[in-house]
Every structure is written in structure tokens, then in C-alpha cells.
């Protein structure tokens, strides 16, 4: 395999890892908790910019052609961790505004406004993060320890995979596979009923919004340290829709389904359309990519709304005739059944394992 092919492959693998982190992040917020976070890309960008300004050093460096705040040169992995923390703090701030009083559609609208406003602010205050030109020449962490760029690229692939594994096993799975995940899914399905059962729905949503924000920030930080540049053109609000489409295609609420969505939509789909020959206007193919991504989301929502790999049903052993009856007394149970049978004639069958009900 040629060096160019290896570089292409490793770059693609890094993008796969970053996109998997991205879909896990948004899936926690939207697929599990039902928060329509149309500002998702803002949190990835917060992580990317934070890692960038904590890696670049003073803005007077490189001939001072870029202007930005802070300008530190922290050792790896501190910029990546700081990227996650800043994105999480930003998510907490945005969450306090959006999640306390607003519901569904209104949350989506306000989050969309916030992400558009953030892009405009960064573009129009060039001293903040170098305006529309963005930040470039961000040093790749630990690159000086590798003799070849190919070796470094493979190292970065391994690093991204390790971060994915840590995020999945220590965060994503611990939330989605726990009663906490169940409570979040309950708030997604019917928030007022969840509140009426004692769930602090604002607290739950804020928690998962911040956790998702941290993961988004880490994904942005990892990406920027590899591609060495970040600018507002790369984090327009439509970028969030790509991640939404990946989740819709893969299977909303399914950790592994959304991974498949990440492979199919932002990675495979983007790579395939790259090879479409240019025709018409030079920007036509790029524009068509967005049209097709939107069409893909619509098609799936219409014909396969639960995605390729739907959220799995969590079945449990329902117990047999010897199952311990907790709670109120058994006498009441029998009386209730008797009353039910007398009243309706429908009766209920509770033979071994509760085979069927007359309801």
C-alpha cells in the first residue's frame, strides 16, 4: 500500500473514531433523553477551539498572523481534557437557559438560534478566535516522538480508538445500561408523567446535556489536534444535522446502531460523494451532498423511523408461579381478581408465568 493510501486510510479511521464519539454524544442527549440539540456542533467546536488555543502557544508566534485568546502551550493530553471541560461548562450554561422552562420544539428553535449566533460572534470578533479565517498550524501532540508521519498517523488512530473505548465503557454504557438511562428514556417518552413519578426531569436532562457536551468537546479536541486547523466554515449549524441523520439512519437510542450510522453517513456517504465528477456549477456537487443527507433523513423518518438497528427491547424474566409477590398482600390480589371476574366476566389468567390476560 502506498504512503498516500495509508495516510488516507488512517485519516479516515481517525474521522471514524471522532464521528463515533459524536453520535454517542448526541445520542445520549437526543436518542436517550429526547433533547433536540440542534446546537450540538457548538460543543464540538468549543472543545476544538479550546484544545487549539491551549496547544498553539502565544498568538505572537508564527509571525503573529493569527490572533486568539489565551495562547498557552500545555502538554498532551491536557488540551484535549480541557476541551471536554470547557464544552461541558458551555453545555451547562446553555442547558440552564434552554432546559429549565422550554419544551421540545422550543428547545430546538432556541438551540438553533444559539449555534447560529455563536458562529456569527466568532466570525465577527476576529481577536477572539481569529474570525472567519479560523486557527491553523496547530501542533500535533507528541508528533516529535515519531520518525515518520505514517507512524504518527497510526498512533493517532490507536489513541482515538482508546478514547472511544474509555468513553463507551466508562460513560455511555454506564448511563444507557443503568436505571439512570431508563429514567432518561422515560423523560424522553413522557416528561410530565416522569415528573409525576418523582423524576427531576430538569436535573436529569441537564446532567445528560453536560455529559454529551463533554464527549462532543473531546471529539472536537481530538480532531483539531490531528487535522491542525479549525474555522467557522467547518462548524456551521448544518453539521449538527449530519450527526442527527447518522443517528436516525443507525437507530435512535441504540449505542451500536448509531455507530453504524456514523460509519454510513458522515464517513462512507461523504467519501463516496467525493468521487462524483464535477458537473454544472463547481459548487453543485457539494450542495447536492447536503440535499441528499436531508433526503436520507426524511426517507428513514418516513419508511424506517427507528433506523437500521432499532433501540433494543430490554426484556426481563417475568417469573413463574413461585415468584415472590412484593408489596401489598396477596389476599388483596385474589380478591381483586375475583372482583374483576365477577364484574366483567372477562377474568384474568395468571397461570404459570401469567399466560395471558383477559384485558
Amino acid at each position: 500500500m502506498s504512503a498516500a493510501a495509508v495516510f488516507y486510510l488512517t485519516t479516515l479511521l481517525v474521522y471514524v473514531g471522532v464521528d463515533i464519539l459524536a453520535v454517542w454524544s448526541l445520542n445520549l442527549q437526543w436518542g436517550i433523553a429526547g433533547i433536540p440539540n440542534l446546537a450540538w456542533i457548538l460543543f464540538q467546536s468549543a472543545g476544538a477551539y479550546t484544545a487549539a488555543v491551549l496547544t498553539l502557544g502565544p498568538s505572537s508566534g508564527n509571525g503573529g498572523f493569527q490572533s486568539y485568546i489565551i495562547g498557552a502551550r500545555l502538554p498532551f493530553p491536557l488540551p484535549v481534557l480541557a476541551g471536554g471541560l470547557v464544552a461541558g461548562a458551555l453545555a451547562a450554561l446553555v442547558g440552564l437557559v434552554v432546559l429549565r422552562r422550554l419544551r421540545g420544539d422550543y428547545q430546538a428553535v432556541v438551540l438553533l438560534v444559539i449555534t447560529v449566533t455563536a458562529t456569527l460572534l466568532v466570525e465577527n470578533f476576529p481577536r477572539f478566535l481569529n474570525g472567519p479565517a479560523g486557527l491553523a498550524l496547530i501542533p500535533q501532540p507528541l508528533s516529535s516522538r515519531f520518525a515518520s508521519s505514517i507512524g504518527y498517523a497510526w498512533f493517532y488512530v490507536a489513541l482515538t480508538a482508546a478514547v472511544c473505548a474509555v468513553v463507551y465503557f466508562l460513560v455511555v454504557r454506564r448511563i444507557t445500561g443503568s436505571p439512570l438511562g431508563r429514567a432518561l428514556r422515560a423523560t424522553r417518552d413522557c416528561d410530565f408523567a416522569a415528573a409525576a413519578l418523582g423524576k427531576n426531569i430538569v436535573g436529569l436532562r441537564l446532567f445528560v446535556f453536560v455529559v454529551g457536551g463533554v464527549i462532543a468537546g473531546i471529539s472536537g479536541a481530538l480532531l483539531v489536534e490531528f487535522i491542525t486547523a479549525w474555522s467557522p466554515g467547518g462548524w456551521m449549524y448544518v453539521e449538527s444535522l449530519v450527526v442527527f441523520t447518522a443517528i436516525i439512519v443507525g437507530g435512535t437510542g441504540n449505542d451500536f446502531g448509531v455507530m453504524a450510522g456514523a460509519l454510513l453517513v458522515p464517513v462512507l456517504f461523504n467519501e463516496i460523494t467525493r468521487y462524483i465528477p464535477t458537473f454544472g456549477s463547481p459548487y453543485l456537487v457539494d450542495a447536492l451532498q447536503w440535499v441528499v443527507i436531508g433526503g436520507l433523513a426524511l426517507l428513514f423518518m418516513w419508511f424506517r423511523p427507528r433506523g437500521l438497528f432499532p433501540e433494543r427491547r430490554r426484556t426481563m424474566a417475568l417469573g413463574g408461579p413461585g415468584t415472590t409477590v412484593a408489596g401489598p398482600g396477596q389476599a388483596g390480589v385474589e380478591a381483586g381478581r375475583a372482583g374483576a371476574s365477577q364484574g366483567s366476566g372477562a377474568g384474568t389468567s395468571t397461570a404459570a408465568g401469567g399466560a395471558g390476560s383477559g384485558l
Partner: protein
Amino acid sequence: MTAPAPPPGPAGPPALLEVTGMVKSFGGAPVVNAASCTVANGSITGLIGPNGAGKSTLVALIGGAQRADAGRVCFLGQDITHQPVYRRARAGLTRTFQLSSEFARLTVMENLMTAAQGHAGERFRVLLLGKRSWRQEEARVLDRARGLLQRFGMTAKGNDYAGSLSGGQKRIVEIMRALMSDPQLLVLDEPLAGINPSLARTIESYLMDLNREDGLSMLIVEHELAALERLSDTVVVMASGRVIAEGELSDVLARSEVVNAYIVG
């Protein structure tokens, strides 16, 4: 249940819930107007009145889904007027809704297990401690949920999505789910509405059972007066946002103001 016992009333059974002078207006029009009522501990209290009387709004005010313009709600002797919905539920005041409110993409079993109060696995520290911190409690909650499924004859539906059930089955899931939250007072908003008569009788018998056998107090909004006649100890009658009568159903239905409210509206 960890909630304190209700305080003794001046006469008769102790009051579990006391609603005093509740006022709620929408766009300047009073929907609930100085409404007061009590629910005695261990009783089933019916809340009746013609359409638009303000019953569901009063229930929303009691549950905390709506904020009152004025008035006070005391539960177990504590003023809960300004407490959010989830705190009232944690204190033992659980309600069901007029429209189906099942967690549609969760199974029936999961619907029940979600309602368990103070589950260690729902705390944010699960991120740090993992499954060890909640495995045992989950087993206990699962066992309780199994018991409820068996009690209500719904075991066979335990692993079905709640959204796939019939309207009547959803009502039963909502009642089971409310029971999982260890309520002291169950507030039911039209539990028999839109359900075929035979299933309505089944639900009625379950409610009767929960009160007579387990001593569970209930406040039931219901249009079907025959059902309330069988179920309730007392009823509160509302019309035009006001409480116009309170007492045994047969007595209040004999009063002219109640008859007028139903006929005139």
C-alpha cells in the same frame, strides 16, 4: 414508605390532603375560584362536576403541574404549595393523567421499574461506581414489579412495549406504575374514561381493592357517577371553578345547587 403519618383532624379521620382557597385564572378568566376541599386518610374521595367545572385544573394544582395564583395545598401536614411536581411525588402524592401517559418505547416492566423511588442506579454517581452500586436494588425493584404484574394479571404483557397496549391496558399500567412509587395519596384523573364497560369494572375493582385491603387513599376525578357511588366515601362537587358541595354522593346529588349545576352547567 418513609413519609410521616398525617396529623389528626379536629374530628373524624385525619386529613391527608387539605386544599384551601385555590385560585387559578387563564387570561383573566378564573378556572378555579377559591376552591377548598380535603381528602381524609384512608378514604376514596370523588371529585365531580359538569364539563368545564375546573376539576382537572384543580388536580393539576394539587399535583403541581400548574402554579396557583392563590391558595394553599397541605399534604401530610406540610405546605407543598410551592414545591415542584417531582418533590410532591417523592413525598407520596402521585397522580395519573386523563390522557395516556405511558412511556411508549419502554416495556411494561420498565414502566413500572422507572417509578421506584430513590433508586441508587438513577443517581449520577453511577458514572463513577458502575453497576455494583445498583445491582442489588435493581433486583428488589424487579421483584416488586413482578409482584404488581401478577397482581393485576398483566404478567404476559410485561415485556411488551407500553405503547403497543390497548387503552384499558395502558390505564392499568399507569395505576401499577403509580403504585410502584409508594404513594400515600393516589390522584386519578378520569381513570375509567374511554374504556369499555367490562374493563372499567375490572379497574374499579382493583381500585376498591387497593383502598380496602391496602388502605391506599385516593382522589378520583370521574364522570361516571355510578362507579363513584360504589367506590367513594365522599365526593366534592365543583361547578364554575367553585366547590359547591361536599359529602356522600347520594346526599350531594339531592341538593338543588348540584342538580342545577349539572342541568344548567
